[in-house]
């Protein structure tokens, strides 16, 4: 898009669309952070807040979808423009589901209530940090249309997967130690699962970025359920 374009108006709209994606991602980013915080602090208010926030994210997702629809209907995009819009449709969907995952963690918090955690959240926090960083990088790659950056996101998913494996093993161990905590342990596992899924979705976004640039879809990961 570095050319002297004669469709300033359209370019402006593409730009707005991108901005909206970024805003949405930023909401999700903080939702993940908050979810982990709520989990750590058993902060039920914060958890409830996240659920409300998630409704807003969903709303934005449909707004973006509508924007994309309008852009297609009104501007007849082709080639890169069209791929960017279709990618935006997909990316908005992915981000929205990430929001759902954050909300899922928040719900876990609500279900567990004010009970001390059954284990330290170190790995989960690392997963969250990693996934948030991946999200930022993926969106950055999207804005910059940088395929290499996007590729790097995919590689980082392995870190999250590894952490999740650890969490899984830890939890199985904990249950074996004390079957009474099974339910709470499973909640924690689900939180981990949610974070793992967030990582997968970042990879999906990265795939879309490469798609915008190359015009072909290439799967960067072997699919989200590899470890389940």
């Amino acid at each position, binding site marked *: 898009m570095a050319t002297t374009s004669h469709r300033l*108006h359209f370019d402006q709209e593409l730009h707005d669309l991108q901005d909206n994606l970024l805003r949405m991602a930023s909401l999700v980013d903080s939702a993940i952070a908050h979810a982990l915080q709520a989990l750590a602090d058993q902060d039920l208010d914060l958890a409830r807040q996240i659920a409300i926030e998630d409704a807003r994210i969903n709303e934005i997702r449909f707004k973006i979808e509508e924007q994309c629809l309008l852009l297609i209907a009104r501007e*007849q995009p082709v080639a890169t423009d069209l791929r960017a819009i279709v990618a935006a449709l997909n990316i908005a969907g992915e981000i929205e589901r990430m929001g759902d995952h954050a909300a899922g963690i928040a719900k876990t918090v609500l279900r567990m209530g004010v009970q001390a955690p059954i284990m330290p959240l170190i790995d989960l926090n690392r997963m969250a940090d990693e996934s948030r960083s991946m999200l930022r990088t993926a969106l950055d790659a999207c804005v910059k249309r940088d395929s290499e950056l996007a590729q790097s996101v995919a590689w980082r998913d392995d870190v999250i997967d590894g952490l999740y494996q650890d969490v899984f093993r830890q939890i199985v161990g904990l249950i074996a130690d004390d079957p009474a905590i099974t339910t709470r342990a499973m909640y924690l596992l689900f939180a981990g699962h949610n974070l793992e899924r967030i990582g997968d979705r970042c990879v999906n976004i990265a795939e879309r970025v490469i798609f915008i640039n190359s015009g072909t879809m290439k799967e960067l990961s072997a699919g989200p359920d590899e470890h389940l």
Partner: protein
Amino acid sequence: MSNTPTLQKTIMTDSTRLKPLTTNAGTASEPSETAIAANHINIFYGAFKAIADVSMAVEARKITAIIGPSGCGKSTMLRAFNRMNDFVPTARVEGEILLHGQNLYAPGVDPVEVRRRVGMVFQKPNPFPKSIYDNIAWAARLNGYRGDMDKLVEESLRAAALWDEVKDKLKQSGLSLSGGQQQRLCIARTIAIRPEIILMDEPCSALDPIATIKIEELMQELKQRYTIIIVTHNMQQAARVSDRTAMMMLTEDGKRSGTLIEFDDTNVIFTRPKDKRTEDYVSGRFG
């Protein structure tokens, strides 16, 4: 590229307000001001009723597109807004066109004055065979403009996004310009007499795609100050440029008069029109 906000930056900002699409017409909540309104208009050519009972309120500082199949009376309707139909001897208009509450077809209204307030840009660029400067100055002078003519010419040309291309050759004939430039000159000329409303009848149909896009961009600029009504055959163009779209069609009673079947935000017309015929028309299906 460098000033594109990235996620990192965005996250810093508190505002998470959604940026609306700029093509978006004002939402229903925004109070809309009516620039000109047709009130139960019927137009006849001799005994033939070309327009049957069309009412539409055109919003100020918006681009309103009139679309519809060939012969459904788009041009006829458009020309009713500035009494251009007066030049067709057989034409007769019934009903009201209201500009500031004044019916343009009331007895005693001067059509010449009407045309000054409601300017028109035509299908084929039609600059006067005069210099670029005089193309603009003539009409202004005619209408008794007393101010600094050089300034007016420059401002009009700037407003029509033509100044930079012609500033060094204002004395050259308007006809020496390319088609797209000519059309912008015609727009500049219209702007120079300060109309409130600008009518455009297929202004790009004689232009190539590049020139077309330039005119479309220009229209987006102009709508900040002017109310624009555009007739176009090109559905994509209507979709691209307009805020509101009026869909006209022939009545199916065998009389083949043109009538308004749907008038709504362009967003709605092109994504979820209410009338089946509109849907068929915009998606290239008919019948």
